[in-house]
């Protein structure tokens, strides 16, 4: 097998290792993964250097892997390939996220349009838009998180809505324009993680009209 790209090689070696020994462990072990990315000095092949903290890099890579581990093993390979190829935001904006201090991790779960849950451990003060973008979830932030559009609309589905500081007029003005507004809608850029929001679950509303299979059959 002649796989040339370093990043591909790391992912694939993990996949093939787990595939090679299905009986012992159908999943990649965490220690294996830790090994992979401490060994890898260039985890992000085309990444500019604006996120320069090595600690952040390896922490985030680990997060993504831990997330992948929770998926059914058959989808792991699919997961590896299905990640977005085309970044949605300028790199400069991803720098906001700071790794949580050990013991102070807050859990947040995003339910995407396909109904798939994605849980992350994040730090106090991170906003939902930055988190979603750092993990490549499909959330746009057309105005760059300045509360001037409604593209980062999320729906709070856990009991945390009432624990959040109330949306201000600017946020409500933008929510008024959001597609599929609900009683517990918020703008992702305005919701900051806090201790009382640990365990928060938000749904990403389906933005575009859903294309039905029947729309194509006649063609």
């Amino acid at each position, binding site marked *: 097998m002649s796989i040339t790209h370093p990043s591909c090689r790391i992912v694939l070696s993990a*996949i093939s290792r787990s595939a090679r020994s299905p009986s012992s462990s159908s999943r990649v072990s965490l220690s294996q993964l830790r090994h992979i990315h401490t060994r890898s000095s260039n985890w992000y092949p*085309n990444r500019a250097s604006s996120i320069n903290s090595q600690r952040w890099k390896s922490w985030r890579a680990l997060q993504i892997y831990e997330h992948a581990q929770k998926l059914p093993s058959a989808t792991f390979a699919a*997961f590896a390939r299905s990640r977005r190829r085309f970044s949605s935001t300028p790199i400069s904006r991803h720098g906001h996220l700071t790794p949580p201090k050990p013991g102070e991790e807050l859990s947040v779960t995003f339910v995407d349009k396909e109904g798939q849950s994605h849980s992350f451990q994040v730090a106090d003060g991170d906003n939902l838009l930055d988190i979603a973008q750092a993990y490549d979830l499909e959330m746009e932030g057309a105005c760059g998180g300045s509360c001037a559009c409604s593209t980062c609309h999320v729906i709070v589905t856990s009991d945390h809505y009432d624990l959040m500081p109330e949306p201000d007029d600017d946020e409500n003005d933008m929510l008024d324009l959001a597609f599929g507004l609900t009683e517990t809608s918020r703008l992702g850029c305005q919701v900051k993680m806090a201790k009382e929001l640990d365990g928060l679950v938000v749904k990403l509303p389906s933005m575009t009209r859903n294309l039905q299979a029947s729309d194509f059959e006649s063609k």
Partner: protein
Amino acid sequence: MQLFRRTPYVCPGCSRKLVSSLRRRNLSKVTFNDFRNTPRSFSHARTKRPFRLAIIGSGPAGFYTAYRVMQKVQDAVVDMYEHLPVPYGLVRFGVAPDHPEVKNCQEKFEEVASSPRFKFIGNVDVGHDIPLPSLKPHYDAILFAYGASKDKKLKIPGEDLEGVYSARAFVGWYNGLPEYANLDPLLGAGEEVVVIGQGNVALDVARILLTGVDALRKTDITERALETLARSKVKSVKVVGRRGPMQAAFTIKEARELMNLPSVSFEATDSSLFPADITKLPRVQKRLTQVLTKGSAASASTASKSWDLSFLLSPKSFNDSPSNLGSLSSIEFEKTEFTPDSDPFDRNAKVTSTGRTTTFPASLAFRSVGYKSSSIPGLAELDVPFDERMGIIPNDPYGRVMNPQSGPGALTAGPVPGMYCAGWVKRGPTGVIASTMDDAFASADAIARDWKQQVPFLNSDNSGSTGMGWDGVKEEAKKRGLRPVSWEDWKMIDKAEKERGNAVGKEREKFTNVSEMLKVLDS
């Protein structure tokens, strides 16, 4: 290469190698389907060459569609044609200069443009500079995203009097649109202004007229507009609509901004136009009503300027005065009322004329009753219809261009292969950035889906597209003496504009005519 792959991503080449190697080892755990059934890898649907898409127009609809198509169709190559040397359409020429945060979406567009799979071809007016059909042989699909370049007229007497402007022209002028660079509206003609129409463009016009000129100096409004605004005598702006406040098209943010302008007061609206118990209104109307009934931060006694919203009035004629023939002095309106079967607090309530009239003095009037798309030459040759009445290209809701004649039977409409539309030319001139993005994504999803499903595209009936894209069109452009502007060229213009802005303490000083823009490149 600016495509940032930030996550465990395996490129198609490597994963093919992996799959074949795993299969050779006959591993049951990993099957080819694990890799094949991934949602985002539509590639090589029918040929080994890339999917070639031409986009006409470089506004938000064009860019968001390009972004999504490039994301969903792995090997899509996009050429974007723009008639001006500068990109971004209404983000540059429509969004008000005091709303810089709305323009942040340009960062995304820049990222799209930095992809090697994207090409910007500015200063080439498809349909005028080069015939639209000359694109056809070289692409698999053409997306029309050229927006709405005209505005609706009122068609009432006196519309050509001096002092009557289209809001589109005024907005274009202060934003540096070359088409209206020399508009120089007569803001010194008098104190009273009437804006006809109650959309966000109408409120933008009112806000720019009422904002103190010093508050605009740091924005990217043109210096020429600043000079003219500094000499403005405007004291009161009346924003007039045919229906009531519950039917007005403006959004709450714009209304709130006007309410918060320093030393501008709001003349209260007749309370009978609002329901007695506003708490029963739906959320959006309720919040808007609260803003309108609360009124302005500045009080009428201390404020130097004022504005108001006048409802249930339909314009009848623009009149000049005997002492000043040819110049606007007053506007006559016909009063309207809600039809007996309409609920006045319903969004879709209808009005009818009462026959009674009222006249407002005005030395300036702006007509702001909507933008309108127009056809571009050559559409018919590509079987693309244009609905003149609606001002759109007929399409299914997903952006596939529909032709009334191309269905399977004699009387059915059907999609025109390889033709798509997005943005205002698709759904009419309404909506904010978020709705344009949603709509562009719907069009892009349709394109990606169609390509994957192998429905007919351009040239499917004969040998297929040449797959050359711009390289095939280039010769034609050269023959006609065109000077195409690349993305690198635009970056030079961009840099020059920023330098000019720096010199006068603002973010950017736009070039307001095409020859100035080109001089940056070719001098």
